[in-house]
């Protein structure tokens, strides 16, 4: 007789699905299982993070903290002591994640494919890294789990190069990646009574990046394929719901929304045109700048840094000019317009202290500019200004780019305020909901006291921007 195992808390995250798209697909009958669940427990809108990229959003989810405390601000960052790139990962994350917190309370945990979880931390259970894991062997904790994953031809991610070359091939690749992940999910669900079980689907983000406009324009070839992919996700949801007892606490949600791209904006080039950044003689990467001549520079997406004397290795802006430079840089960013439509590109520019806080749970704190400039630790790694674009303007780098605005084969970009949440049997904050507010109720549901410095309550909630 087979023993039936059931997780005590189930999470299925579906990357980058906007609530509007979800409602449309549920309404059209493409996602009947999601629609049935949403009919029972409702669907909510959820805010993401700034900047709105998966690694920052998932760092917020898994730590329950704002970036000022966990230290993940994007897919790339500045290497200490020079103008060079580094790639943040879970080693860079300055705080414990939800799998570790639960492990410390002797809970058995499982996580698969959640962005930012590579290299996997050593938890009481299994953790399989997400799409930036370099290999299966390195992605899995314990390492031996890669044996099983290899045996089913598990894929860490679909092939984005393929997406650029051949959309039909991309669709096949997405299907296989999803099928293997779901196979692994059901396999691991059956291995024991997990206390916490989280599987992440990344393919939705990929298909939205490469086919969102074709879907919206009802392209005869790709709109049906787009729906077919979401139908497959829904089938997996249906199978999972059939498999779970009705009273299992469950969260199904996305980390950010999506909208069609109007233009990709080469922000580094804009700063070069405005005289803020002077590229190095040979541009090898996005931080190949001439520090002696650059007063500011940027990283994706929309993260502006003052080349501050005493903080940056070749800084030239005196600390007393820090605020003035940030204000002027903000004005220049806000002035940028789409040459085709004359529409403004940047909706808002925030100072780092307006959305991040360094410690404690008091939320954003009033600080003098010099105090802001001199911050160290995780908060001190934040961009000095964060440019938030209007939907449709995708902020990129392009230090050596030839054009400021361009359209490529990318069709969709991330949006901040329209992620979705479907929650069953979990008490979530009633009104405003941000992705970093989820860790606390998950811990509480499992009877684990959240750490005292966890955000997501009282003042420690990022303001809606």
């Amino acid at each position, binding site marked *: 007789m087979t023993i039936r195992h059931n997780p005590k808390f189930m999470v299925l995250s579906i990357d980058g699905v906007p609530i509007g798209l979800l409602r449309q697909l549920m309404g059209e009958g493409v996602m009947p299982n999601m629609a049935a669940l949403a009919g029972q427990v409702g669907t909510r809108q959820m805010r993401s993070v700034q900047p709105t990229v998966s690694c920052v959003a998932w760092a917020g989810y898994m730590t329950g903290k704002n970036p000022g405390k966990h230290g993940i601000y994007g897919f790339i960052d500045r290497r200490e002591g020079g103008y060079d*790139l580094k790639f943040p990962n879970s080693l860079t994350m300055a705080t414990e994640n939800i799998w570790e917190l639960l492990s410390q309370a002797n809970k058995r945990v499982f996580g698969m494919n959640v962005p930012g979880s590579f290299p996997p931390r050593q938890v009481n259970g299994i953790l399989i890294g997400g799409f930036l894991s*370099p290999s299966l062997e390195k992605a899995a904790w314990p*390492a031996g789990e890669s044996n099983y994953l290899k045996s089913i031809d598990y894929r860490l991610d679909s092939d984005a190069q393929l997406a650029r070359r051949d959309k039909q091939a991309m669709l096949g690749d997405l299907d296989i990646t999803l099928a293997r992940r779901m196979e692994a999910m059901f396999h691991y669900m059956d291995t024991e009574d997990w206390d916490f079980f989280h599987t992440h689907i990344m393919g939705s983000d990929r298909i939205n990046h490469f086919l969102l406009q074709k879907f919206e324009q009802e392209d005869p070839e790709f709109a049906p394929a787009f729906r077919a992919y979401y139908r497959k996700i829904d089938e997996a949801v249906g199978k999972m719901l059939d498999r779970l007892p009705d009273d299992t606490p469950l969260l199904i949600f996305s980390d950010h929304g999506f909208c069609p791209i109007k233009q*990709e904006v080469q922000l580094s080039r804009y700063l070069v045109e405005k005289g803020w950044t002077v590229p190095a003689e040979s541009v090898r990467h996005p931080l190949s700048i001439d520090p002696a001549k650059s007063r500011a520079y940027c990283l994706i997406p929309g993260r502006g840094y003052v080349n501050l004397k005493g903080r940056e290795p070749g800084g030239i802006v005196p600390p007393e000019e820090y605020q003035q430079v940030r204000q002027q840089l903000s004005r220049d960013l806000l002035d940028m317009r789409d040459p085709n439509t004359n529409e403004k590109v940047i909706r808002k520019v925030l100072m780092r202290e307006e959305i991040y806080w360094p410690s404690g749970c008091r939320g954003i704190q009033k600080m003098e500019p010099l105090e802001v400039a001199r911050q160290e630790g995780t908060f001190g790694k934040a961009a000095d200004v964060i440019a938030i674009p209007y939907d449709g303007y995708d902020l990129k780098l392009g230090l050596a780019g030839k054009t400021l605005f361009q359209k*490529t084969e990318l069709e969709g970009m991330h949006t901040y305020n329209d992620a979705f949440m479907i929650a069953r049997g979990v008490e979530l904050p009633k009104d405003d909901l941000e992705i970093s507010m989820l860790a606390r109720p998950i811990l509480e549901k499992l009877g684990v006291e959240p750490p005292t410095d966890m955000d997501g309550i009282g003042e420690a909630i990022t303001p809606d921007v």
Partner: protein
Amino acid sequence: MDRLDELESQSVYIIREAYYHYKKLAMLWSVGKDSTTMLWLCRKAFFGEIPFPLLHIDTSYKFPEMYKFRDEYSKKWGLKLLITRNEEALAKGMTCEKKLECCTALKTEGLKQAIAKYGFEALLLGIRRDEHGIRAKERYFSPRDEQFKWNYQDQPPELWDQYKNQAEEKTHIRVHPLLHWTEKDIWYYIKRENIPITDLYLAKDGKRYRSIGCVPCCSPIESNASTVDEIIEELESTTTSERAGRAQDKEDTYTMQKLRALGYM
């Protein structure tokens, strides 16, 4: 018997076992501290005259100091040194700009070519369990298939010095005499035996290499350890990994490629 004697004795036993079982045996010598320590142990095992060849996979991108060291000591110790290069890949312009492809072409393919050319049944390699998590599962005698794949699920127990030294056809056996050593053990042994190493390991102007290989893939670490004693002292207090300056570089390249493909850059 102190710890270093035990390590040495176990390694010499494995080296002699390998020589007893395999007619076509060779030792891979990268000229780094580990394989040079293994070379020292091989010399001890056979009283100064190693009865099998040493194989050096030359990517052409190694440090000049490494080539100099290789040539000097192969002559001094009378080694049967075989040098192999993937000339075809180099002729096609394989450079370290594409790090992942470069390693595959110049190291992995280079080794495959050498095995095909010389027909080696077994190779001695100086890997250690503490270098990387994935190596923790390795065995002293570890078979590879024709694609160089290592099957984790076929890991024989190695109890009471009994090793599975027979392999299926179309495979070669990798023998790891230093598997049980740690980085610190290597340095304590280098000190005790006064084993020559390249100067790259010793600090100059506040930097030294903790792990060496091809020039573009190695980054020096901040260090003032300019003698073996100072290196040991440094290692006793460090918490960073030995290969941080190498593996991360390749992983960063992978990440960059991935982010580019996804349009993030």
